[in-house]
């Protein structure tokens, strides 16, 4: 924050004192700084700069973080055109991670005549963070003008142009600095230079002129300054393909294959370059040749299996599968699993392997891995008891292989014997306590069996536990998403089970835990997003614009990832369940009546279940009560804004569920229509129509009811219940069943029973648990 010190003092005594406070602040002596400011404010309570600085010092001194913001706002009210106040406000809002406000006030500081150019650098970081690409080039260029001696500032300006969609100017800026720097490169600049050359080439290619891109590529290659040889080759091949110079491209792909014969992508690209995709004979000949060049690589042996049929397939499959089984490759089944999409291939492979199995009794390990393969086959085609028989054969034969136990547990899981599954996994774990993989699996299986305590105890072997009773806090700190989401889902199931048993206390505790875990997950993703902040500057300095742009893309889709969908699905479920069963939280379950023993147990549970230190709401009780009371669902509404992909299926479902609870039925109608356009058979369409038709809140004004029913007429005029069933609930899968589980009318429940009959036992179990709370 030392930049603030550059402000010139004016003559007045107040100003001098303010300067002193600023100096103290800059040297991190916040408390002393506060004392001086208080002196100024005593004489002149309207001194805006001091008010602002007081806010900042309060924030950093940890004395009174809560009232820090009020000083900032008061300072801005007094004098919102003072650039010192503006700058301080910018610093404050950046510190509290309100990047939009920070950008606004940094900008204001510049607009109101600050001569401190380094503000532009912070401003551009904030603009990048909030994706204000329209204004970004201005601040990047402003800073470049002030500090043209650093390549980082040129790179940053080019990136800004590109993000704003102005490729031509991006290219121009990169070209200019390249010319300026050409003769002055030191060895320490070589990496940056290489990256910038490649970046400029990317920009040229993105403009769509591949001829120019290829020419530029040849130019930079000739300079011998590009260190990333792989990129050079991949780009060259790509451009040649786009320019329809396929013969030349094929030569480059062959070079790439030589570098890495295990990358399946290159084989397919070579096929395309040679144009053999649709002539199976030539294609096969090509692969036979490639397999002889690269005998140790998998793709040239595997890929032909994806396009051969009949006797030829059988012969090749035999060589492929048996070769691996003989060598004792544990992943043989996983390797051929993609071929199982074709039923006749599956049958062929099965007959090859089961025949082979009869001949290997005298080779113990081959025998064992073959039995393992066959067990996986039976599992995959849904014959669980066959699978179990086979894996037991293998385990009795060689009981020391961990993989066998993992599969056995998996079979039990699919049979919905969840406790048994977890205990088998644990047997495997005991064979090798230092194997993290099996530890993780065992933990997960305990969670699936809703034995959260055993799960936490198991994984705590690998966590840093310090003075907590287990690794829960460490797992939160380490952002162990898989663990937290699995435990949240487990708590949600435990909640529903407790509800089914009319055990209100248990239900409430578990729903609260689920909610807490889901909230932690949203915070982890928020942290991911915040983690970008430093890189807007850092990547430019390090000269890694290509990696930077990859990061920007990643972050743009951060909240639309399947994992985050899963988090939001669970978060909304736990919140909406709390609202639907508000009696759990609003009636007092008589804490006073607790016996001593119960109090001790509860305290133990608090210690055991704390996800962060000194949490005053371990059970999520207060938070949920608040949500139920204020009825605004802020916790969910906030999430709606994060979903960038407005055209994603999940977004519509999530928005519908939240808005339906908020009685914003017109918005619900919009989500429904969007979903219909995206995925016209999605079971949620049936759910939404039913909700909007039959389950609007009683208090809904007639006008709204009218709008909704007219809205429904448009697409669903002829959709009666029978029609809904047929169109949206025709599939016999888990997804459909989970939607139906929320619909109480008898016809839907009848259809649900039908689907459940056809599901595997594990999926059926999951549906039954959801039904418990609806």
């Amino acid at each position, binding site marked *: 924050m030392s930049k603030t010190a550059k402000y010139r003092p004016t003559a007045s005594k107040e100003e001098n004192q303010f300067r002193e406070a600023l100096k103290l602040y800059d040297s991190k002596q916040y408390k002393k700084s506060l004392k001086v400011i208080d002196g100024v404010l005593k004489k002149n309570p309207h001194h805006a700069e001091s008010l602002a600085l007081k806010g900042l010092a309060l924030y950093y001194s940890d004395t009174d973080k809560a009232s820090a913001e009020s000083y900032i706002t008061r300072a801005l009210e007094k004098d919102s055109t003072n650039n010192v106040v503006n700058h301080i406000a910018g610093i404050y809002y950046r510190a509290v991670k309100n990047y939009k406000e920070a950008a606004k006030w940094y900008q204001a500081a510049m607009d109101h005549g600050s001569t401190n150019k380094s503000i532009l650098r912070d401003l551009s970081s904030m603009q990048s963070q909030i994706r204000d690409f329209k204004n970004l080039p201005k601040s990047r260029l402003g800073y470049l003008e002030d500090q043209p001696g650093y390549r980082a500032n040129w790179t940053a300006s080019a990136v800004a142009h590109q993000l704003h969609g102005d490729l031509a100017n991006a290219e121009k800026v990169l070209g200019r600095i390249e010319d300026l720097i050409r003769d002055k490169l030191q060895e320490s600049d070589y990496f940056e230079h290489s990256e910038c050359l490649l970046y400029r080439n990317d920009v040229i290619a993105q403009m769509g002129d591949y001829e120019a891109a290829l020419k530029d590529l040849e130019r930079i290659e000739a300079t011998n300054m590009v260190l990333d040889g792989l990129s050079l080759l991949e780009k060259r091949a790509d451009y040649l393909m786009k320019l329809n110079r396929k013969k030349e491209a094929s030569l480059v792909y062959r070079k790439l294959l030589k570098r890495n014969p295990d990358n399946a992508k290159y084989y397919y690209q070579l096929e395309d370059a040679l144009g053999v995709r649709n002539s199976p004979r030539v294609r096969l000949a090509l692969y036979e040749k490639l397999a002889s060049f690269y005998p140790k690589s998998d793709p040239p042996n595997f890929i032909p299996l994806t396009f051969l049929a009949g006797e030829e397939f059988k012969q090749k499959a035999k060589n492929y599968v048996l070769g691996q089984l003989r060598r*004792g490759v544990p992943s043989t089944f996983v390797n051929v699993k993609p071929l199982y999409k074709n039923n006749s291939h599956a049958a062929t492979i099965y007959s090859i392997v089961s025949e082979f199995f009869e001949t290997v009794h005298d080779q*113990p*390990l081959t*025998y*064992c891995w073959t039995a393992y393969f066959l067990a996986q086959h039976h599992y995959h085609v849904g014959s669980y008891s066959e699978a179990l028989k086979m894996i037991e054969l293998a385990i009795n*034969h*060689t*009981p*020391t*292989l961990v993989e066998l136990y993992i599969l056995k547990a998996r079979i039990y899981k699919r049979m919905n014997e969840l406790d048994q599954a977890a205990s088998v996994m644990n047997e495997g774990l*005991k*064979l*090798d*306590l*230092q194997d993290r993989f099996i530890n993780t699996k065992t933990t997960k299986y305990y969670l699936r069996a809703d034995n959260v305590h055993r799960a936490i105890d198991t994984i705590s072997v690998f966590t840093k536990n310090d003075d907590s009773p287990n690794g829960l806090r460490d797992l939160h700190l380490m952002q162990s998403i898989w663990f937290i989401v699995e435990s949240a889902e487990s708590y949600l199931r435990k909640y529903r089970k407790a509800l089914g048993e009319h055990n209100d206390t248990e239900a409430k505790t578990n729903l609260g835990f689920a909610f807490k875990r889901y909230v932690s997950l949203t915070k982890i993703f928020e942290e991911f997003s915040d983690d970008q902040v430093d890189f807007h500057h850092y990547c430019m300095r390090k000269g890694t614009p290509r990696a930077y742009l990859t990061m920007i893309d990643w972050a743009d889709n951060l909240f639309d990832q399947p994992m985050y969908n899963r988090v939001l699905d669970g978060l909304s479920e736990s919140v909406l369940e709390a609202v639907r069963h508000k009696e759990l939280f609003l009636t007092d379950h008589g804490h006073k009546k607790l016996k001593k023993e119960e109090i001790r147990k509860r305290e133990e549970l608090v210690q055991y279940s704390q996800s962060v230190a000194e949490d005053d709401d371990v059970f999520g009780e207060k938070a949920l009560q608040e949500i139920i009371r204020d009825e605004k669902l802020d916790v969910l509404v906030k999430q709606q804004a994060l979903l960038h992909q407005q055209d994603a299926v999940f977004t519509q479902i999530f928005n519908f569920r939240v808005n339906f609870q908020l009685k914003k039925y017109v918005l619900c109608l919009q989500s429904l229509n969007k979903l219909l356009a995206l995925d016209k058979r999605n079971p949620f369409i049936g759910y939404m129509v039913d909700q909007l038709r039959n389950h609007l809140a009683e208090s809904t004004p007639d006008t709204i009811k009218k709008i909704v029913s007219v809205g429904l007429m448009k697409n669903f005029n002829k959709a009666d219940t029978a029609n809904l069933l047929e169109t949206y609930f025709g599939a016999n899968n888990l997804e459909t069943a989970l939607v139906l589980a929320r619909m109480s009318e008898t016809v839907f429940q009848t259809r649900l029973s039908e689907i459940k009959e056809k599901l595997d036992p594990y999926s059926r179990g999951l549906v039954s648990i959801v039904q418990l709370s609806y």
Partner: protein
Amino acid sequence: MISLDDLTANNLGLINVIAYASYSDQELEEIKESGELAQYAYYNEVPVGLVICKPLQPVSSKSPAGLLIDKLCVLPAYSGKYGLEDSLLEYVENITRKRHLDKIYVVTEDPSQWHKFGFVYEDASQELYRNLNLVKQGQQLLRKALNN
């Protein structure tokens, strides 16, 4: 193909599985603490056999009479074919020598399977073994003398 290795705190669970036994956690810990006296045998890196021995300590003497093999077992599917037993036995002989001892003992109900490895009958009622209660009903004490 065959290799031997020490027991570690993390793989003690293998003992009961390979030996079809049910040692308690404490017993397993003691076996591990005996260090070189216990050993796993691996066939193509899969653990399939194990040997556990301890010094045979006569009541009347200060130094041990030799090493007593407590357990020597190989999973049935791997037993008697690949020389795993031989490797384990050779290992025991080596540590016996290392300790400047010259006899290996075993107590068994099935003496014939030990004869081929050079073990011979030993009278357990000798003064040397008094009060050790080595053999139970139906068992024999066998001994192999090592020539240095």
